[in-house]
């Protein structure tokens, strides 16, 4: 049996050009978009897993999936060019404005209905637009499978178990887990580059599009409707400090001034 690996990727907007909709969510259409850098790390790990499995005579395939508008097909073509075997696009107006809970639910419907025998799911730890890091753990819970986050490398994998390195501020660990398993990776500087053959293959590949019905999703649990969190307001934070400006101060005088401030702060509080 083929060892199925799923990589969840996200197309993220260029953060220099943000527009908001009337629902206070991001207006994604028409934005410059890139593949989330953490998801390139996920693709790198997935391809490594496939390679190591092939070495142990296990046939493996890497399936890339994304949820988004039709233009999100672009990141799937990139994933195919990098070496993923198949690409799936979850696109439906009803999916839009999903928070992390609704997104995780939608992805879980896709996995359990379309690729039910997936053994390994790899996600980027977080997306650079929202930075929440919530979808991977939520997805693992929805599928009721084991999970490990903050993964920095794959050490060993076979049909039965896998060994990973995990790096946090507090510890470095090596962990072992059987399958199914969800991994999220902290690698955000992967430099895998598609080669020319990859691009050619990606051009010719068929990308299957699934709507909510096709993945058997409950319409009340997807998109805006299935999202308990709402953006109440978005704003540029105001500065609350009353600034006193000193123009053209000589460095020595400035140094003296700062010493006085340090002294003041230390005597005030001690």
């Amino acid at each position, binding site marked *: 049996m083929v060892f199925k690996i799923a990589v969840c990727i996200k197309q993220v907007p260029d953060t220099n050009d943000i527009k908001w909709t009337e629902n*206070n969510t991001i207006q994604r259409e028409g934005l410059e978009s890139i593949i989330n850098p953490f998801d390139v790390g996920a693709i790198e790990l997935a391809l490594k897993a496939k390679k190591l499995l092939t070495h142990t005579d296990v046939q493996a395939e890497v399936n890339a999936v994304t949820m988004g508008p039709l233009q999100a097909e672009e990141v799937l073509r990139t994933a195919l060019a990098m070496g993923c075997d198949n690409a799936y696009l979850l696109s439906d107006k009803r999916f839009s404005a999903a928070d*992390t*809970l609704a997104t995780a639910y939608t992805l879980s419907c896709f996995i359990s209905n379309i690729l039910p025998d997936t053994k390994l799911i790899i996600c980027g730890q977080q997306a650079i637009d929202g*930075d*929440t*890091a*919530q979808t991977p*753990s*939520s997805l*693992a*819970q*929805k599928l*009721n*499978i*084991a*999970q*490990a*986050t*903050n993964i920095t490398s794959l050490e060993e994998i076979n049909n039965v178990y896998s060994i990973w390195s995990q790096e*946090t*501020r*507090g*510890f*470095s*660990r*090596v*962990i*072992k887990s059987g399958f199914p398993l969800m991994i999220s990776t902290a690698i955000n500087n992967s430099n895998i580059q598609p080669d020319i053959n990859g691009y050619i293959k990606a051009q010719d590949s068929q990308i299957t599009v699934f709507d909510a019905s096709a993945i058997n999703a409950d319409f009340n649990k997807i998109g805006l409707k299935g*999202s*308990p*969190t*709402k953006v*109440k*307001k*978005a*704003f*540029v*934070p105001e*500065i609350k*400090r009353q*600034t*006193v*400006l*000193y*123009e*053209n*101060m000589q*460095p*020595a005088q*400035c*140094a003296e*001034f*700062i*010493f006085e*401030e*340090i*002294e003041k*702060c*230390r005597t005030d*509080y001690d």
Partner: protein
Amino acid sequence: MTKTALVYIELNNSKIEKVCKEIVSKANELASDIEVNAVVIADKTTIRNSQQDLALLNVKKLFIIEDNIFDSYQCCLFSSVLSAFINKNKPDIFLMGATENGRELAPRTASALNIGLTADCTDISVDESFNLLATRPTYGGKMMATIISETRPNFATIRPGAFKIENTLVNNPEFVYIQPETAGHELLLEVLKCETKQQEEDWTCSDVIIAGGLGLKTKENFEKIYTLCSLINAKPAASRAAVELGWAPSEIQVGQTGNSVSPKLYIALGISGAMQHMTGITNADKIVAVNTDRQAPIMSASDIAIESDAAAVLQSMIEHSGSKQALL
């Protein structure tokens, strides 16, 4: 009816994670009649070792879910125990630290409860209906977003360093022991090797922080910050730009993608003050900025803005620190 907030207490080597104390402080300020409780999951030995620390928490009740199976943190296990507890306890608001463990435990727990979750908040408040207004930086710190949730409990994780620990009276919490249902949990990870990293001294709340940015012009100049800091007993910090240029390690980066700091005095030398940097220093009591560019954003966002050459100021401070040491 009394409104309740529940705070998840994370223990690390039998010590309470600092962010949990920060959250307890803030939670008590949310409303005058709020009841703040806490919950901790650990094994017997850990609870015994941290008992004194736990007894100092400013909460009404501390729920202790104790079993030897909790001797090491396991996300799936802790999440199922926690979600079962939340289902029974039904707090109005549930808060957790956005530590590395918290950032996976919270979403798994929220998902199990099918409730909304707002990640990595830097500010929280409640409206008249006791809805949590959770504010967080988004888009790399370019914008702030205030998020509400339509499900209860209103659940948020809080960024370490976002709030100060107020030295309020101790509440002498009532310890309530809860029997967990831990039978047959199969989703455990096997830990083959674990090296705890040496916990560096927490510098983010030291009294004086001296931070450097691109305005220092060279790595050599930046490194003078270390010299000055050791002379006057301050802590060094860096802007993202300085870290990206390799002038400073990411551990001392301040801002949305780095650390939030809360010193009494924050001295910014040659830092322009992009929004993502400013989010990290909101809690500084006083900010003094030195920059040659009067138009730099930080020059209108500090308490004191000085138009001067940061590198020369730094050099001058080092040269004159000798005569100042008695005072400092």
